[in-house]
C-alpha cells in the first residue's frame, strides 16, 4: 500500500515536470543558434578585427559605415527594391486571391501550379532568371536587344548602365537589372501572399457581401468598403512578411545580378555579405547586421501585434 502510494507520488512529480523536459531541448537549441549569436552580434559591432586580435572600437564601426557612399547608395537601392517588390506582390497577390476565392472549378489546380515558383530555392530561381537574359545568348536577350523596341541600341539587362538619378544621389529611376530583380523576386513571393490573402478572404462570410450586393453596392464599392477593410490586418501581415523577406533575402541577388551591373542592385543584405566576406571588415558587417536586425524586430513586433499572439497562445 505504502509502496503504491510512493510510486504514485513519484510519477506525479515526474509528470509535473514533463512539459519542462519536453520543451527544454528546443529552448537549448534556440539559445545556442538564435539568442547567443544575436547578443554576440552586438559585441562584434563594437569591435573590429585587427592583426593583433579583436579591438574595442565603440561606435566607430557605425561611423565608418555611415561614412561610405556605397552604404547610402545601398539604402536607396533597398528602398527602391522593397517598394517595387511589396507593391507588385501585394496587388498581384490580392487579384489572384480574389479570383481563386470565387471557387472556380480548377481553383485547387491553379493554386498548386502557382506554388511551384515558391518551392524553388531563391538561388536557383535567380539562376533561372539569369539564364533568360544572359548577354547575347539568353532567350529574352534577343527580344530585349531589338533596337526597334528599346532605342537606340536595344536593352541588355545584366549590363545596362544606370539611368541618371532624378533626385540627387537617390537611385531612382531603377536600373533595368533592378526592375528585373524586383520582378523575379515578386514571381517567387507571389504564391505565399496569395495563400495568405486567400485564407483571409475565405473567412469573410458570404452573407456580408451578398447583402451589400442586394443593397445595391457594385463590385468596386464592395471591395473598397467591405473586403479590403476586413482583410486589412492580413494585408499588413503580408506587407511586413514581404518586407522582412525582401530585406534579408540575399540568394537571388547573389545568383541573378551579383549586385551589378556596377552597383545598381547592391542592396543592404548584399552589402553585409561584401563587408564581411570580401572586405573582411567583420565589425562593420556586424554593425550593419545589428541595424538590419532592429528593423526586423520592429516588423516582427508589428506582425505579432496584428496576429494577436495572446489569443493564439491560449
Amino acid at each position, binding site marked *: 500500500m505504502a509502496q503504491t502510494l510512493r510510486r504514485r507520488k513519484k510519477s506525479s512529480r515526474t509528470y509535473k515536470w514533463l512539459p519542462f523536459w519536453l520543451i527544454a531541448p*528546443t529552448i537549448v537549441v534556440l539559445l545556442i543558434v538564435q539568442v547567443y549569436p544575436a547578443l554576440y552580434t552586438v559585441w562584434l559591432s563594437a569591435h573590429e578585427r585587427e592583426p593583433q586580435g579583436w579591438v574595442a572600437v565603440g561606435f566607430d564601426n557605425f561611423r565608418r559605415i555611415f561614412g561610405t557612399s556605397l552604404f547610402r547608395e545601398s539604402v536607396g537601392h533597398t528602398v527602391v527594391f522593397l517598394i517595387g517588390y511589396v507593391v507588385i506582390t501585394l496587388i498581384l497577390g490580392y487579384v489572384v486571391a480574389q479570383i481563386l476565392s470565387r471557387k*472556380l472549378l480548377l481553383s485547387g489546380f491553379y493554386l498548386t501550379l502557382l506554388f511551384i515558383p515558391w518551392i524553388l530555392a531563391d*538561388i536557383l530561381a535567380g539562376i533561372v532568371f539569369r539564364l533568360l537574359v544572359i548577354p547575347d*545568348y539568353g532567350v529574352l536577350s534577343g527580344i530585349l536587344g531589338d533596337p526597334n523596341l528599346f532605342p537606340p541600341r536595344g536593352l541588355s539587362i545584366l549590363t545596362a548602365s544606370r539611368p541618371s538619378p532624378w533626385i540627387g544621389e537617390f537611385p531612382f529611376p531603377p536600373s533595368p537589372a533592378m526592375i528585373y530583380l524586383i520582378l523575379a523576386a515578386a514571381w517567387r513571393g507571389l504564391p505565399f501572399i496569395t495563400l495568405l490573402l486567400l485564407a483571409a478572404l475565405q473567412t469573410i462570410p458570404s452573407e456580408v457581401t451578398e447583402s451589400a450586393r442586394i443593397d445595391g453596392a457594385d463590385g468596386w464599392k464592395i471591395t473598397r468598403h467591405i473586403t479590403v477593410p476586413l482583410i486589412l490586418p492580413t494585408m499588413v501581415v503580408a506587407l511586413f512578411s514581404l518586407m522582412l523577406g525582401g530585406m534579408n533575402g540575399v540568394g537571388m541577388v547573389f*545568383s541573378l545580378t551579383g549586385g551589378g551591373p556596377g552597383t545598381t542592385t547592391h542592396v543592404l543584405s548584399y552589402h553585409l555579405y561584401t563587408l564581411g566576406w570580401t572586405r573582411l571588415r567583420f565589425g562593420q558587417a556586424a554593425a550593419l547586421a545589428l541595424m538590419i536586425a532592429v528593423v526586423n524586430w520592429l516588423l516582427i513586433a508589428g506582425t505579432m501585434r496584428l496576429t494577436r499572439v495572446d489569443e493564439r497562445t491560449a
Partner: protein
Amino acid sequence: MARLRSPSRKTWSSLLFNGIMILILLVAMAPIALTVVISFKDQQDTIRKPPVLFPCDTATDPFDWGACRWAVEGYERVLAPEPSDSLLGFRLAGKMFRIYIPNTLLYASVTAVGVTILAGMSGFAFSRYRFRGRGLLMAAILAITGVPLLTNILALYQMGVILRKSPFPFNDRVFLIVVYLGFFLPLSVWIAKGFFDTIPRDLEEAALIDGASPIGALRHVTMPAALPGLTAIFLLTFVNVWNEFLAGYLLVSRNELKPVMFGLYDFLGANIINLQVIAAACILLALPMVVIFLFARRAFFMAMVEGAVKG
C-alpha cells in the same frame, strides 16, 4: 427576364476569371518552361546569335517540328555517368551527384528528423499543459520565427572560427545541422502546436482512464493522430534545408562538405557559357522538391496556414 440573364452572366464571368487565371499562370510558368527547353538544347543552339527559342529552325523554315535538334548533352554533363561494376552498371561521376547531393541528403534528413521530434515534443507540451511562463515562451518562439538567417550569420561564422581553433572536437557537418535545427525549429513548434490543438483531449483522457500511462497515451493515441501534421513538418523542413544557400556556403569551411545549393552556385561560375548544362542542373535539383510538393501539397498548405496566418 432577369432570371434568364443571370446564368449567362455567371458563365461569362466564370470564363473571364478562368481566362485571367490561365494568363497569369502562363506568365508564371514561362521561366520554368523556358529553362526546360534550354536544358534540352545542344551546345551549338545555346550560343546562337540572335538566340532562338526552339532549336527547330532549318535553312528554309523558321519552325519545323521534324527538324528539332533536341539533345540531352546538358544532363549528361551534369550527371557524367561512368561505366562501373556497380549494381546499375554505371555511376554518376558529376560533382553534384558525387558530393553535393549526398551532403544535402544527410543535412536535410537529419535536420528534418530532429526538427520533427523537437517540435513534436514542445508543440505537444504547449498544446496540452498550462504552466508558468507558457505564454511568454510561446511569444518568444514566435518572435524568433521571424528572425532571418542573415543577421545572425556573422556571429555564427565567428563562433565556427573560434570553435575550430579550440580543443573542442568540432565538426562542420554537426555545426551546420545544429544551425539548421535552430532556424527551422521555431516555425515548426507553432505548426506542431496548432496540429495538437486540433486533436481532441478526450481521446487521451479515455486512454488514461483505461489505465494507460501518459507516455503510453501519447505514443498510442496522440502520436498516430498527429502523424499527418508531423509529416508536414518533416517535409517542409526537408525542402527548406535542401533550398538553403547562405549558411551552407558561409559556415562550412571545406567545399566538399558544402550542400547542394552551393554546388549549383559553383556550377554557375564554372559553366557560365554552357546554358544547357546550367539549365539541366537547375531542373535536376528543382524536380525532387516539386515532386515532394505535388504529392504533399495539402500538408504544405495546411502547415503554412497553421504557422503563418491564423489570426
